[in-house]
């Protein structure tokens, strides 16, 4: 789950990281008031969960409260990469001498968190990472020990930070570590961390991504989820504990298990079709869950055929079949369906579905070929 800049920076501030004075606004009027309060030049920053806000014109400088109001009105009426701007952050403008990058993420290969820093911070950091990766310092953190002071000092030295700032930099690095662990983040990033013309460190921008699996212990953070970046069907799926991702094809897929769900998509493509979604109904799926999954697939008008592929282990074939039947009574549909049930109680499941006019398949290949043909409007036995 991604947090907005203003949410991330509020969390940073709680952990002692200095951020610019500023507040969040939903209207141009509010933005004007905030600019009046701050009494200085301000930056108006769109709060949308995509990169490249600045290049899209979503981050602009305002010299007066009136100008703030005009600019905020413009930005609040924008869409950036398809996302509506609902809020703007009005921050006091800083005078910048130098931009640094500082972030923590999970290093899968090392199985440890890694702190990354670069003297070449700012909007081009990804370009720096690609072209001159040696300019990014990486220090692994032992998750059992936490970030040690000496590690932060080493980083400060490596990015040529003036010595008089090392102590403060250490506090900021430690604050970022505490924010990362305290929120169960998978990414916590300050970019840029600037040295101001007064020779102070200041976190101008912030980004956090949280571990969805850890939200059970952060209900306050879970409430911050921005639903704009998710398809309606994905939001609906989450309510039922289904793992669903919408795609652009026309063959709806309902599968148990993530690996098999991906494989089912792949094999549809292999035989010339296009999957409409990824959908994992999970282990031990109930009839109710299956019915919800069925409705979600059918809510996509692109869907011309459905492929149900269930390899029973914990999930029972009869339970899945009952879910399908109840959903079909609910949502009357003409969309043809190919069913492949294997494993636990598959035979019982097939019997339950025998009455409903469905096309069955024995193998994965057969199921894929039949659903591709159906999606093309061809007749299938």
């Amino acid at each position, binding site marked *: 789950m991604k947090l907005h800049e203003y949410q991330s920076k509020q969390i940073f501030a709680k952990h002692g990281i200095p951020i610019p004075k500023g507040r969040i606004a939903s209207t141009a009027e509010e933005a004007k008031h905030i600019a009046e309060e701050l009494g200085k030049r301000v930056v108006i920053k769109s709060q949308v969960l995509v990169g490249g806000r600045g290049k899209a014109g979503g981050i602009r400088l305002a010299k007066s409260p009136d100008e703030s109001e005009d600019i905020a009105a413009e930005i609040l009426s924008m869409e950036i990469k398809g996302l509506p701007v609902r809020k703007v952050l009005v921050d006091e403008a800083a005078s910048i001498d130098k931009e640094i990058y500082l972030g923590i993420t999970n290093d899968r290969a090392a199985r440890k968190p890694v702190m990354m820093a670069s003297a070449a911070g700012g909007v081009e950091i990804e370009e720096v990472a690609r072209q001159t990766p040696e300019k990014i310092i990486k220090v692994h953190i032992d998750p059992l020990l936490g970030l040690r002071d000496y590690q932060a000092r080493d980083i400060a030295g490596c990015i040529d930070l003036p010595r008089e700032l090392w102590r403060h930099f250490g506090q900021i690095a430690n604050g970022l570590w505490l924010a990362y662990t305290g929120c169960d983040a998978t990414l916590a990033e300050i970019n840029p961390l600037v040295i101001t013309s007064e020779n102070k460190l200041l976190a101008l921008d912030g980004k956090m991504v949280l*571990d969805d699996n850890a939200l059970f212990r952060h209900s306050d953070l879970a409430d911050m989820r921005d639903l704009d970046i998710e398809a309606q069907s994905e939001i609906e799926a989450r309510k039922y504990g289904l793992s669903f991702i919408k795609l652009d094809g026309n063959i709806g897929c309902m599968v148990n298990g993530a690996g098999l769900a*991906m494989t089912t998509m792949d094999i549809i493509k292999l035989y010339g079709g296009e999957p409409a979604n990824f959908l994992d109904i999970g282990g031990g799926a109930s009839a109710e869950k299956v019915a919800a999954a069925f409705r979600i697939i059918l809510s996509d008008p692109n869907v011309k055929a459905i492929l149900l592929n269930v390899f029973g282990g914990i999930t029972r074939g009869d339970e899945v079949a009952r879910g399908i039947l109840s959903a079909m009574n609910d949502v009357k549909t003409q969309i043809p369906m190919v069913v492949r049930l294997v494993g636990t109680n598959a035979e019982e499941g097939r019997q339950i579905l025998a009455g409903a006019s469905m096309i069955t398949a024995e193998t994965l290949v057969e199921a894929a070929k039949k659903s591709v043909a159906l999606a093309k409007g061809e007749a299938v036995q």
Partner: protein
Amino acid sequence: MSILVNKNTRLLVQNITGKEGIFHTKQMVDYGTNVVSGVTPGKGGEWVLDGKIPVFDSVKVAVEATGANTSVVFVPARFAADALFEAADAGIPLIICITEGIPVQDMMRVRNYLDQKGVRLVGPNCPGILTPGEAKVGIIPGDISIPGNVGIVSRSGTLTYEVLYALMMANMGVSTCLGIGGDPINGTNFLDALEMFEADPHTDMVVLIGEIGGTDEEKAAEFIADRMTKSVVGFIAGRTAPPGKRMGHAGAIVEGGSGLAVDKIKALQTAGVKVANHPEEIPLLFKS
């Protein structure tokens, strides 16, 4: 012969009285696995499965009383890290964690702690280990494979069942089937499994089932090229997965251009691995 679990496995089930725990304990016992005890804090002194298996309050006491040498964990995600620390501290050398959805920072702490203790972890978010005819530890259905000489290592669950089933239909048996799990931070990885299969005299060939996300398949490919004498067939799920989306498994995500299926397939092919287009093709590739 086999790797990790066999007739000498003395299995302990953590959260044996939970819904999943008791259901799969019965399945494992019916298969012939030697389940010696279970643990559920607060339920010590009870017995399950018609008085056959004793329940203890702690792993330490269960190990002392029943000599368990392997633990399988069905503890819910929010308590799972603690259960793993407990098993390691009680001296269990092999822990198999079935639980899905454990916070990734918990797993980083667990993994680093277990490494220091020299404890082997399989999973989490995995279906467990099946050595056909000897022991079933976890949730892999027992009736979809026969004993044989094919080793399987996989990041997936039901996809693995699909492969077991396809092998059985082709009359090919399995030495051990090892599910290493779909999480970004896990215990045993492809490399560890390939090393064990290479050393196991009763495994003659290996199936590697990978998926998008991370770079473990690429590392496995290097090992196969440099050190593996046995033939390997691979399959990678997620060729059609869009970037930036987590495909069900917490670890199945293409990030910053890394973790793509095409790169993994290319790495495996370069190492001399035949890569199947779909699971039902795997037995054919061994015979070709």
